[in-house]
Every structure is written in C-alpha cells, then in structure tokens.
C-alpha cells in the first residue's frame, strides 16, 4: 500500500468520516502527524489496527503523542508498555499475513472463479488480497473471511470489497481431480524415517487446518 493511502486508512480508523464537524480540526492535525512518519512506522500502525484490539485508538493516540515529543517511538518499545504492545501485536499481524500467503487454498468453482475461504485471527483480508490480486492477475478470485463473513474480489491487480449473497457455486469437474492429486502428493512427500508431527503442528497450527485441504479428511469437510 502507498504511504498516502496508509495515512488515510489509519486516520479513518481513528476518526471515521461521519463524525461531527467538530472533528475536522483533529482530522487535519492527525493527517499532518501521520504524514511525518516513515512508511515502515505507518505500516506498523496499519497492522496494529488490523489486529482489532480493544485499545487501538487510544494506543495510537498515545503513540502519536510520544512521537510529537520528538523521540523515535520504537526506542520506547522497551520501556513503554503501550508502544511495546503496538510493535509486538503488529508483528503478529505481519506474521499471520505471511503465513496465509502460503496457507490460503483456492478451489475452482463454476464460472471459473477461484474461491478461497479462511479464518484468520486478525482482519488481514485486504493486505492478503493485494498479494493474490498481483500474483494471479488473470484470475477472478474471491477471498472469503468466514470468521468475519467479509469478502473481496480480486482481478487484474485490483481488489474490490465484496458481499457473499448467494451460496458458493459448485466446484468445476477438474477440481476434485486436482485436489486429490495434491493430497496424494502431500502424503507421499513426507519421509517416514524422519516423521516429526510435533514440528508439523508448530508450523501448521490446528486452528488453521480446517481450510487447508491437505489436512482435511475429505474435500467437503475441509472446505466447510
């Protein structure tokens, strides 16, 4: 995401547009404060917002206040509990985005759409969709956060917010074959003599497995 849209996104999370006129000056001030931050700090605040934690607004206000006292807030992450929380939670969000770049599974459904359902701890559907929109430019992709029941449509590098109104279309004829091939491959590639289920559980936590097809017992169950 570009810096300017990060600034806007963070500002909107702090003071939504529909608030009273009274908020206009504050909106302006906050924009100015945010513009002074470098892009990695802006990203940290953005990811912190995606965590949907209880104190997001207060914590970011605190952060901006510390920043206005002309000290690099990152340096306070050892002594200031709020700032420490912002950095450590943002890091968790960042990690979950990275994980789902790998764990997301798409199935081809009627109409040649690729449909992917997932259930993340944090509200990461937008940054994740940007990744897939660029990677699968020609595809028509629907990404569905089934925990929050929100969705996006991605095509040609762009991401649109979407609403799932009807039932998800049926898988196309080759879908079952391809996914069965994958599962067969997955079972085959593990080396018996080196079996290490504990390490596997660390790497692919049980909470994520429901939407990762090679861990589901059969297709229906794994896709819900």
């Amino acid at each position, binding site marked *: 995401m570009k810096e300017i849209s990060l600034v806007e996104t963070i500002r909107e999370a702090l003071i939504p547009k529909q608030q009273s006129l009274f908020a206009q000056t504050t909106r302006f001030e906050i924009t100015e404060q945010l513009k002074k931050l470098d892009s990695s700090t802006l990203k940290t605040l953005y990811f912190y917002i995606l965590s949907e934690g209880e104190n997001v607004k207060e914590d970011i206000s605190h952060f901006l206040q510390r920043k206005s006292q002309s000290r690099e807030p990152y*340096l306070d*992450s*050892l*002594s200031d509990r709020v700032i*420490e929380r912002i950095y450590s939670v943002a890091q968790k969000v960042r990690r979950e985005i*990275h994980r789902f*770049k*790998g*764990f*997301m*599974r*798409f*199935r*081809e459904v009627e109409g040649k759409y*690729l449909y*992917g359902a997932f259930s993340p701890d944090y509200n990461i559907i937008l940054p994740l969709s940007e990744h*897939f929109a*660029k*990677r*699968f*430019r*020609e*595809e028509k992709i629907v990404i569905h956060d089934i925990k929050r029941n929100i969705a996006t449509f991605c095509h040609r*590098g762009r991401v649109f917010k979407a609403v799932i109104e009807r039932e998800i279309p049926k898988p196309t*004829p*080759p879908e079952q*074959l*391809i*996914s*069965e*091939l*994958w599962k*067969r*491959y*997955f*079972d*085959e*590639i*593990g*080396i*018996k*003599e*080196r*079996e*290490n*289920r*504990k*390490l*596997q559980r*660390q*790497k*692919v936590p049980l909470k994520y497995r429901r939407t*990762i097809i*090679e861990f589901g017992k059969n297709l229906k169950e794994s896709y819900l």
Partner: protein
Amino acid sequence: MLIKSSPSLYEKLALLARGAKFDVSCASSGVARESKSAKIGSTARFGICHSWSSDGRCISLLKVLLTNFCINDCAYCINRRKNDIDRTILLPEELAKLTYEFYRRNYIEGLFLSSGIMGSAERTMEMMIDTVKILRQKYGFYGYVHLKILPYTSEQTIREAIKWADRVSMNLELPNEQSMKSLAPEKKFSEILGTINRISQILRERQDQKEGFFSKGGQSTQIIVGATSDTDYEILKLSNLLYKRNRLRRVYYSGYIPVNNDSRLPALTAPPLLREHRLYQADWLLRFYGFSLDEIVDPRNPNLDENVDPKLSWALRNLNFFPVDISNAPLEVLLRIPGVGPVSAKKIIHFRRHTSLGLRELKKLGVVIKRAKYFITWRGKPLIERSLIDSPERLSEQVQLFSENQLRISL
C-alpha cells in the same frame, strides 16, 4: 484436457514424488519478481512456505522427478538402476499443466524439477527444460522454478537451463573423490565440481542481465551425511570452498536414510538427524556469523560435538574472549556471544545508544538469555553473579547444563 484423460496420473505423481523426496532443498527465496507481463505468478525475496509434511519439512515447491528411470547405479539412491521398482515418466506438457493447476490453487510456490537419467543426461535435461519453457511461454508462468542440472550435460544445455530457471543445482552428494568412486561409480567427483565451477562462472557473467529469469536465485547443492565415514571437517571444508569460490547460495545436508541393501553402506537404525542439525548450525556460522572454518572444526578435531551447538562449543574453548561488554562491542564481536544472532545483535547496537540494557531488555530484543548471560557485561558489570565469570570451570559446567539437547529441524 490432458490431465483428465490420464487415469494413472495419481500413480505417476506418487512414484515421482517418492523418488524426489530425498532432495532436501525447497527454498523459494532469493528472487523478488512481480511482473506485469506475467499471466500468472510472482516470487518473494524471502520465499513462502505453503505447507509442512509429516516429517516437519516445509513444502514450498512441487518437488518431483521428470522420470525415475535411471542409467546410473548410485548405492544410496532409491532410483538406482538395479532397484526393482515401478518406473514412469511425466511428459513435459503434463508436468507443466500440473504445476500450473497446483499453483493457481495456491498449493505451491513453484516447481522443483529433478530427474533420473533416461537414455542420456543431455536428452533428459532437454525434456526438463522443455517442461519449464512450456510453463513460462504457454502458461505465462512467473512463479519460482528450481532446476536440477544433471551430471554430464553439455555447456550449451546448461546455459539454456539457467536461462529459464530461478535457481539451479547440481548435487555432489559425496564430499570427495574416494567416496564417490565407491558409492557412485559412474560419476567423477572432479568433473561434477568442475561443472559447478562452470555454472558459477555463467551465473557471474549473467548477473547483470535485466530481462528474463537467468537463475537470479543462484546455485545450490546437496551432500549426504552419514553414508560414508567422511568427517564433518571434510564436509564443511567443501562447503566453505563452495561458498567462497563458487558463491553458492546454499549447501544442503541430507542425513542418510537407508533405502537400499548394499554392503558398501552402513546399517543405520535411524537417520543421523542430530549430526545433520549441527552441520547446518556450523554452516550458518560460516555464512552469517563471520566464523572461519578452523574455528569450528580442524583435522585434529574433525567432528562437531553433538552435545553442544558449535557456537557454544567455540565459546567454551575460548573463554578468554569473554565476557563481551555489550555496551560498546562491535557487531562482529556481538555475533560471537552464544544466544545472540544477527537480528538481535543489530537491535542491541540500535538500542544501546539510548537505553541501558539489562537481561529483561535483552530478552525483549530476542537474545536467548539462558545462554548469553554467562558471557556478557554491561558497562563492565556482569549480569549474573560475578563468581561464575571469574571461574571458567564452573562457568563451563553451568553452561553445559543449559545447552540444548533438544532437536529441532527446520530448513
């Protein structure tokens, strides 16, 4: 559709995955590419893992053989000529299609294609390259491709492979001429090393190439551990040479797993996983911690200590180097402290100018306190009771108690 018309595809894929699984490399890193001319695919600088198999190894690439037919008879290999196993081949078009279909469902980050040798190395390599060309051209695929270079391929064909792949590798498997002569009689150590040399030259010539793929992810190789009596010193000496002279990105170590009955091979009850783990740790010390080979192993102590990790082992042999004062030690000295890595060392340097660092703060910066605390001071003051630092024997005992004997393997 091609895939639909082939009912035996399950069996083929299973066989060819079984034949490929002992290759440990699965990295999809080293190349960041996001191209608008791509129909499909991108690569990420640090790679992306898509799954983890029952052995806890990451699955990033579709790791598969083009064929498990082979004219060679390497003692350690499941696909050796003598073995009575089912043999098959995936045609380039089938394999390209399969990769594409897996990729667009986000099962994988790309393709890792290796092969047994059918007919001649040259002919087999050409079919492997055909597969990649179909992927790149017909499917507009810009995802990651790792191509195995087969021994005794012509230079022209090697150049073509490099052109279409993101990373290439040629497996040494054994660390010297003698071992190779005994276990892989059809191959010659010096010639394989020569080809690795040639590949690194070609990669160097091509490093500024802007267009296309040209294996910007460099070259890697693999060495089997525990199939011969070769020492860790011999293995690491070779790795060190490959990193220094050939700028290899990675040397992979593969703990030997007996797949064949052969009198030339040791009878192992379990693969030497701990030894493999220690070799990786030593490899990291060579590449990221500024250690030289003879600080880790030498001809008089040719094997790594399995009870203590090689960095802690070095520290215990060099107690006069410690304690290190973390308030002012330079990066290369910080990196010598057990429990401090490249990331935490850089954080220490960043924070110490502004803040006083005690055990609590160091922990937050990612330092492993239970190891590091014996070896550090802050502005001259120890962070544990003085007596330990003053008495090296007690210190050594203490540290040994804490040394990890837990085995974690993750490539």
